């Protein structure tokens, strides 16, 4: 695996190398312009043919979205996570559908839940899991799901609510945590 990373370093610029906690897991951060080239190089020359997942992480403190592409090589039995960072204010990136067809669905999901626009994906604007959603994309960190749920769906107006059982439980757990 070290040889592959060295080869990659010779061709592309690798921003950051991390060793995973496991033996066969490596995490590489690359520049976002070179991602397509890195993925197609890994797929064609280094047998990383299986794209397991495309994921997105919201780093609201740094005002960035992290896109992770998890690859697996059947021959070498190695997991590789390629990650890039994109600007949170202008969440745009290009699709990788031409390299891995199944990325279409994952990108559609990220578009809906995080609002990242994937240029070139024909189905990304269709509704995936939500219907008639009019708030900010729900998986962003600044979306308060409890507040929305209370406003939208309410709670039962009963004795249980008057005693506010949830507050009692949370007070109790806080007390326990302080010990």
């Amino acid at each position, binding site marked *: 695996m070290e040889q592959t990373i060295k080869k990659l370093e010779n061709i592309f610029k690798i921003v950051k190398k991390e060793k995973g*906690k496991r033996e*066969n897991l490596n995490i590489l951060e690359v520049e976002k312009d070179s991602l397509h080239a890195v993925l197609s190089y890994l797929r064609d020359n280094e047998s990383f043919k299986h794209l397991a997942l495309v994921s997105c992480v*919201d780093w609201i403190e740094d005002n960035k979205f992290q896109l992770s592409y998890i690859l697996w090589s059947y021959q070498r039995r190695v997991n590789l*996570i390629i990650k890039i960072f994109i600007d949170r204010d202008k969440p745009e990136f290009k699709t990788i559908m031409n390299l891995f067809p*199944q990325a279409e669905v994952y990108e559609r999901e990220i578009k809906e839940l995080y609002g990242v626009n994937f240029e070139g994906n024909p189905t990304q604007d269709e509704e995936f*899991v939500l219907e008639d959603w009019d708030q900010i994309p729900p998986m962003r960190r600044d979306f308060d799901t409890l507040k929305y749920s209370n406003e939208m769906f309410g709670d039962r107006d009963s004795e249980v609510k008057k005693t506010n059982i949830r507050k009692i439980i949370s007070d109790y757990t806080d007390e326990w945590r302080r010990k």
Partner: protein
Amino acid sequence: MKEFKREDREVKLFVGPQHPGVTGNMSFEITLEGDTLTSVKTHVGYLHRAFEKLMERRLYIQNFPLVCRICVPESDTNEENYARALEELAGIEVPERAKWIRTLVLELSRLQMFIRWMGGIAGTMGLSTAPQWAIGDRDYILDLFEELTGGRIYHIYILPGGVRRDIPEGFEERVLKVMDYIEKKLPDYDDLIFENSVFKKRLIGLSKLDPAWVEEIGVTGPVARACGFPFDVRKEQPYEIYDKLDFDIITETGCDMYSMALVRRREIDLSINLIRQIIDKMPKGEVWTPLPNVLYWKIPAGETYVKTEATRGEFGYYVVTDGSDKPRRIHVRGVSTPHAYTLLERLVPGMNISDFSVTIVGLQTCPPEIER
């Protein structure tokens, strides 16, 4: 004379979510020409509970009741995956015996899922005797789970650092007894389902895949193994104690629905074999490494991707932590996502409408893991 265009001959039909032929709560928009399908569009989201959002709001240990509900019929895979991800990030060692018990639970869970599937596919084709048998036989395994963990479906038995408690006295004998019973029943299932001429006639050649798609789309599990690809996470990247067990990867070469069914049928034999091996070799010892106070448990920053062989294929958890007491991001790789979208879209053109629901059950799509 009026000329008919192709669009005029096509009928759009909505299958589901309230439809007896659809597994779970999902819907399909199919286009028909006569009784031949021309295209399909999958719609999910009817079971979206926003697990990933809720998990970011809760402590690590509070997420265990949530994760087991991600794929309802096979909850242990989720628990094991999540627990293993946390162990890896926090650097917790699991005692040897706990690993063996975990594997036993995973195999029992796999076995009950395959038996349930066997009834499901036969029921979809109109063999209504098979679900009565299969779901009745599956209940013997659920009873074992109830004895071991206290719950029939949701167990919350596997926790970081081991398992919740040791297996009760005499449990091994009862497991073996159930295995003997199921093994005795399997020839009946073969006669009823897999040797049935109607079953064979309908499934042989149905939804034939091109083996090249397997690597291209990311197909895993029995669907990939039915095309001759020996992809099995239990061998590829042995987790828990699968490297100490003696087994071979099951493959078929037919690339069609009948080969997938045969792979799953042979997986039942394999599971029974593995459960016998586990009970035979299980060591004595501790089952639990004490954790720090779980309500105040912080995991150092990092990220990992762990995976398990679920009954449907590679089931993965991508966990990102940031050093606080709550996870930053948990993304679940639902196995069925490539199956229900990209693969189904390629399989469907030219298929007869009566084979459509058989295909969905045969691919073993599980909607809650697609949308979570």
